[in-house]
């Protein structure tokens, strides 16, 4: 009988569960009772639409047809797969990829072994981008107030706008984008600012890294960014961190970290500690995981900083605190501490101070000048924009690759006060439905652009195919606002970098521009002692996190990502509220029970999911679901929790009536009951006898509790 379990009902030996499990199809009864019928699912996956221009070229002949090209390809005899370099841009940062083509069209994303951001790996989102390219719900043409338009009408409209904006020196002209590292985009906006001095460039990224930026500003006076060198790290401490799942450079960090994890493949196995309120991939990868909610963290992190930088010995800390500090000090110059974007700026500043005190700078990490173009505080930038919109001070608004109507409460209402608004997006969005103009964007695989990796390396994006539909790129649109000529994105990108023919060719062939890595900065740490704000007391603390696969919701129409089981909950097609076992116990919740979570005046009712390993007072709401305008796959899937981001008041949680059926694969395809341990694991001295022995199992069990008495260094 294995001690390894997959779901809480299995563990509790809930008699109803046992009865269902013995019938081997535990979800069947629930599934049959679910209101969504198969027809509904089929509607979701309706028969393929014939794509304009891609519809079968078959003229009905039995046995099919053969269609050779008119002219042969020059210089090559086409005989198989070809790979072309480009990048997958997530959160503005580039992960270099190669796209594999078959029969002349892109079909698969592969990693680029030469690219510093990944050294050949890819993320789930990077792999799924190819599905977005072929998505039948992509924007196909220009729409103005719901009516299709010819492109000439856009040219006319923009010409009129140019005139109006010029007259006001750009007062009232605003551009809103997400986080971007594109040198070309930045250059174009700077050029626009030359022409319209009073225009403003706003930024909004719902999955906010404002605290990271603000923390760097506190600590160094500049928005420097971290480049971790995990190959040199012997001791890693992560605090509510996204180091391995979505931080810029996460693919590279995961690779460097993993290279030192297998003691038979490396001489120096590293050690990782994680302190976090809710399980993350980084926490699972750690050797020791300590659970601490935001209130605990607000106490522990300053104490840790005091202990590490000042040698103090704070009282009233958990049992693992002292051994952790001892371990950090023992690995001076070989350790690295990382905090995630959900932690407040003060925590980031303290982490910077600790890293400097531990001597890691230059060894285990470097600081570089901001890779993000023109970094600003996003929340302030958006608030300013919304205030100006409400105040009638915005006359022309360009929204590029952003969906603020869905992700920013209050934006939709303010949008009504803007005279002319344009959204550039490659698929249906809530914002596109409300702005004056809905401009179809080319997919990232269809046009030229550029972006920078986490370490500053410039990556050129080259088209992998001719545009499937009518679409334009942001570079084209911005150039149109500067002057009447219609530009070619390739020329614009080429102009930004000033590469000669050979360098341009090499950049496209290798997927990166050589020598553009940002050199480490020598900025000095400021002697600040920021106070970490103590979160409000209460029974329940609400954490709002991006969904691991949909992020802020932009991938909601990607069926692969919707159906990909989330790493820890194994949920698909849904985003229940993740509640801790303690809260579930208190409110008598089981998976699927409806709850209402309220933040201030705003409440959302959604099902609950019990998350083992979560801090006792925490609930986690996942962003990115509940979209109302996104295409047939993502429409109405899940629950929209963005309204909760607007609340400031006390958090409350109540059980509501009813249950929802959730599709989690955690109980699917279970291996045999009597198998012993399914996953073998151990600790270094026992590495020779990995077969589960009772001694081994006992020691492992001790390791899973937060108090590691007797198992830690120095103890």
């Amino acid at each position: 009988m294995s001690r390894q379990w997959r779901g809480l009902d299995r563990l509790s030996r809930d008699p109803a569960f046992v009865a269902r499990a013995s019938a081997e199809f535990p979800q069947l009864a629930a599934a049959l009772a679910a209101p969504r019928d198969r027809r509904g699912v089929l509607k979701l996956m309706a028969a393929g639409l014939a794509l304009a221009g891609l519809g079968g070229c078959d003229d009905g002949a039995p046995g099919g047809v053969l269609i050779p090209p008119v002219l042969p390809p020059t210089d090559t005899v086409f005989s198989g797969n070809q790979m072309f370099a480009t990048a997958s841009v997530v959160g503005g940062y580039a992960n270099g990829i190669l796209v594999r083509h078959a029969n002349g069209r892109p079909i698969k994303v592969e990693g680029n072994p030469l690219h510093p951001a990944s050294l050949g790996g890819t993320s789930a989102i990077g792999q799924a981008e190819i599905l977005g390219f072929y998505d039948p719900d992509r924007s196909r043409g220009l729409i103005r107030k719901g009516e299709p338009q010819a492109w000439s009408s856009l040219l006319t409209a923009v010409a009129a706008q140019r005139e109006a904006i010029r007259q006001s020196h750009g007062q009232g002209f605003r551009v809103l984008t997400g986080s971007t590292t594109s040198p070309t985009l930045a250059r174009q906006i700077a050029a626009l600012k030359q022409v319209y001095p009073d225009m403003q460039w706003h930024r909004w990224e719902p999955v906010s890294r404002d605290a990271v930026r603000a923390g760097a500003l506190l600590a160094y006076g500049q928005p420097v960014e971290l480049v971790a060198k995990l190959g040199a790290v012997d001791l890693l401490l992560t605090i509510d961190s996204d180091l391995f799942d979505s931080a810029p450079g996460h693919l590279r960090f995961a690779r460097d970290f993993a290279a030192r994890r297998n003691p038979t493949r490396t001489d120096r196995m590293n050690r990782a500690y994680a302190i976090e309120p809710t399980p993350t991939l980084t926490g699972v990868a750690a050797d020791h995981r300590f659970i601490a909610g935001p209130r605990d963290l607000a106490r522990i992190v300053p104490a840790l900083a005091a202990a590490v930088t000042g040698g103090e010995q704070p009282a009233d800390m958990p049992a693992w605190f002292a051994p952790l500090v001892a371990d950090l000090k023992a690995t001076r110059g070989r350790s690295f501490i990382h905090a995630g974007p959900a932690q407040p700026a003060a925590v980031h500043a303290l982490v910077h101070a600790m890293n400097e005190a531990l001597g890691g700078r230059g060894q285990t990490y470097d600081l570089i000048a901001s890779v993000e173009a023109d970094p600003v505080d996003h929340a302030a930038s958006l608030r300013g924009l919304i205030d100006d919109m409400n105040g009638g001070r915005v006359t022309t608004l360009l929204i590029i690759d952003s969906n603020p109507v869905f992700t920013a409460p209050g934006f939709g209402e303010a949008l009504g006060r803007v005279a002319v608004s344009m959204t550039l997006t490659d698929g249906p969005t809530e914002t596109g439905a409300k702005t004056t103009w809905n401009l179809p964007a080319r997919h990232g695989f269809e046009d030229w652009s550029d972006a920078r990796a986490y370490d500053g390396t410039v990556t050129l994006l080259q088209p992998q195919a001719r545009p499937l539909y009518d679409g334009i790129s942001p570079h084209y649109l911005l150039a149109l606002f500067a002057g009447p000529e219609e530009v070619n994105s390739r020329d614009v990108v080429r102009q930004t970098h000033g590469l000669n023919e050979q360098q341009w060719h090499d950049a496209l062939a290798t997927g990166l521009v050589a020598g553009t890595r940002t050199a480490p900065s020598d900025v000095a740490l400021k002697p600040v002692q920021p106070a970490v704000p103590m979160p409000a007391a209460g029974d329940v603390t609400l954490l709002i996190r991006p969904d691991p696969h949909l992020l802020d919701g932009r991938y909601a129409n990607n069926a692969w990502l919707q159906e990909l089981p989330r790493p820890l909950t194994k949920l698909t097609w849904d985003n229940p509220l993740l509640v801790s076992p303690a809260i579930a116990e208190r409110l008598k919740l089981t998976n699927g029970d409806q709850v209402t979570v309220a933040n201030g005046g705003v409440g959302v009712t959604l099902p609950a999911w019990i998350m083992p390993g979560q801090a006792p007072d925490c609930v986690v709401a996942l962003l990115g679901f509940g979209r109302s305008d996104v295409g047939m796959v993502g429409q109405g899937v899940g629950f929209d929790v963005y309204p909760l981001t607007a609340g400031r008041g006390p958090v409350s949680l109540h059980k509501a009536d009813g249950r929802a059926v959730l599709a989690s694969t955690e109980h699917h395809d279970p291996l045999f009951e009597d198998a012993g341990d399914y996953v073998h694991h151990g600790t270094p001295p026992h590495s020779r006898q990995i077969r589960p022995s009772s001694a081994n199992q006992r020691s492992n069990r001790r390791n899973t509790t937060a108090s590691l008495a007797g198992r830690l260094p120095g103890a």
Partner: protein
Amino acid sequence: MPAIFSPEANLTAKLGLIGLAGLLLGGMGWWWLWPRTEYVRHNHWFVEQKVPFSHQHHVSGLGIDCRFCHMTVETAATAGMPPTYTCMTCHSQIWTNAAMLAPVRESLANNTPLIWRRVTDLPDYVYFNHKIHIAKGVGCESCHGTMQDMPLTQKARTLTMGFCLDCHRDPAPNLRPPEAIYNTEWHRTADTPSPAVLAQLYHVGDRKLTDCSICHR
């Protein structure tokens, strides 16, 4: 009581049963035999094309090598069809006004490809690779027949799985010396190396060619 059935009914019943049995056997025979006919397999059917291309004229008559048009037969899974450009290398200078070649000229002029109807095709779950067959000494004629004698292209072999397995089970007798693969006049003579020697030369026989994974993916 009078008899229900007349004496003739016996004969009727017997004939009826024999007829039924005959029908059943005949039906089963037809069911088995019909898919195996050359008719159903479209063997020797002339397929109508937009341009009635004659292999006989171009290969026997003009002596053009297979690879002039089917360029990727040695390097790719598919042999390749010639782009319009290839046709126009000659037909921009000869037969320049022929009505038969009008679609070719239009294709080049309008930049729209020519659409050829497939004569030789295999089901989608079969993954045939020309490159390896050429590399191992299988001549074009083994599967495509005597193309040089066809005024209009037709399918000359059944190309069923049985046809493929007949060779895969014992490839050696079907191999040609390397220089003879594209030679339409080649026949085995006394001087031709024996099948065993050819198999040795091509390293055929190392791999079990009747594994399902050889052709099906």
